């Protein structure tokens, strides 16, 4: 059940998207998100959808794998849609008792839902095609200019990569401890809210202990290998732009231009 969370997971495949430089993918993701807010009509979203579809096709990640990750945000999506639908003032479309659905409300609700779905799919495609290590490498490199403001870029990137690395480990651990307690007759499902919260103690205590133990071990192992932060540290595999990255930037530029064009013209 916990394994269904695909957000932040990597999907192994041999595709052009996988081979792109993580910087290119990060920039592209940010650009795609911006584009979602540039366009504001059906034509624009069609272009965005086509762009996304082509990228997904190229990435060789099965579509249902991406959709599976969407399950986790259904609730968020629902709230957004409902609020926009009922609380936007404007020309009434349907009116039942005190609840009115306005034309503007319907429009924003659909718009927000589409934006949100595209946003999540877009960023999932990035995390699915980039290993966490590569991702943080790319981030570190992109954020390097921030060093002038005394922001510890390397440390932040390191923390992120460790956190990402530990998500599947902790999920697996949760699964294991849960099973062990169920084998001892624990019940995580039935009962009222208080009883349910109480039943989490046998799960959370061992989980925290295990997380601390792992953190401790990792810190020790890093110490033992003389890790001392980003100062004077070089990379074994420095990031290098290749030809496909150039092409990717070019395509991205065209896409953005098209989006802006649609916005200006219509």
């Amino acid at each position, binding site marked *: 059940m916990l394994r269904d969370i695909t957000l932040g997971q990597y999907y192994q495949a041999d595709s052009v998207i996988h081979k792109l430089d993580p910087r290119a993918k990060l920039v592209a993701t940010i650009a795609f998100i911006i584009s979602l807010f540039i366009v504001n009509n059906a034509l624009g979203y069609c272009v965005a959808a086509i762009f996304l579809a082509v990228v997904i096709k190229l990435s060789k990640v099965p579509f*249902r794998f991406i959709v599976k990750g969407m399950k986790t945000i259904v609730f968020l999506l629902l709230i957004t849609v409902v609020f926009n639908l009922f609380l936007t003032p404007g020309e009434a479309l349907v009116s039942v008792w005190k609840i009115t659905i306005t034309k503007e409300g319907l429009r924003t609700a659909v718009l927000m839902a589409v934006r949100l779905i595209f946003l999540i799919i877009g960023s999932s495609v990035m995390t699915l095609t980039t290993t966490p290590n590569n991702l943080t490498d790319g981030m570190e490199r992109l954020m390097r200019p921030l060093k002038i403001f005394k922001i510890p870029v390397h440390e932040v990137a390191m923390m992120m990569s460790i956190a990402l690395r530990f998500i599947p480990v902790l999920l697996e651990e949760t699964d294991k401890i849960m099973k062990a307690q169920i*084998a*001892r007759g*624990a019940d995580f499902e039935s009962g009222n809210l208080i009883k349910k919260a109480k039943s989490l103690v046998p799960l959370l205590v061992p989980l925290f*202990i295990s997380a601390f133990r792992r953190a401790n071990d990792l810190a020790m192992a890093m110490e033992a290998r003389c890790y001392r932060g980003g100062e004077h540290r070089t990379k074994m595999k420095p990031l290098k732009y290749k030809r496909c990255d150039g092409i990717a930037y070019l395509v991205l530029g065209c896409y953005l231009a098209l989006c802006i064009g649609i916005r200006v013209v219509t």
Partner: protein
Amino acid sequence: MPLILDHVNYIYGGDTELAVHALNDINLVIPDNQFIGLIGHTGSGKSTLVQHLNGLLKPTSGAIYFNGEDIHDSDFDKKKLRSKVGLVFQYPEHQLFEIDVFSDVCFGPKNLGLSKKETELRAYEALKQVGLEDEFFYQSPFDLSGGQKRRVAIAGVLAMKPDILVLDEPTAGLDPKGRDEILDQIAKLHNEMGITVILVSHSMEDVAKYVERIIVMNKGSVLYDNAPKEVFKHYKELEAVGLAAPQVTYIMQALKERGLPVNTEVTTILEARDEILRVKGVK
């Protein structure tokens, strides 16, 4: 109460590209009062198999019967099954959570809905059965040594009074002394209480001394299911799947090849000694 596995298959991550066929057509009968060793190389599916025995995993296809009832029938009482088939996971000490040892062992029987008195009585008995001294009962479980923690965790399952006790690699990460102590303790449980014990291990050496039946797993299938001395006859095939027969088997085989007419079916060092002395005519 016998446990029957009928054509059990299990696939992890069924609908994705990453599917692993972890169990492949398993057919087993686990009768009352037997001491069974479940052996296999790492990744052969031992842990997956034992999680089926108390209904934690549901077979992708096939069925499991406890006392004649299908355990995945909607009206089957899973909680009851879990008290009857006690499963001790690998590194069980990682599941301890209470403020003291005694309360932790009480967790299982308490979940069964027993009275406070009965719960405490069972916890006390279980701790005695695993050989933990009274002085540790009210200490934090986290202050104990590795071997002691493991005993507490085993007691936590024993306190539910299972008919079948399954231990997944109970000796992993213990020193030789701790290992022997735990195994001796488990053998004693089997002998005194007459419960069925399934001991999961990747080491023949560990189980040869104790068990009366060995189930060898390889790549999700049962390779052999027989008495130890029968299984060890296949020592060459066992090597091919990353296992080995006990050292004694090798010594006896070598002796036989050099012309000493010994019986190669002995499984422990003591038996081997007697056998050699017998052949030599000393005894």
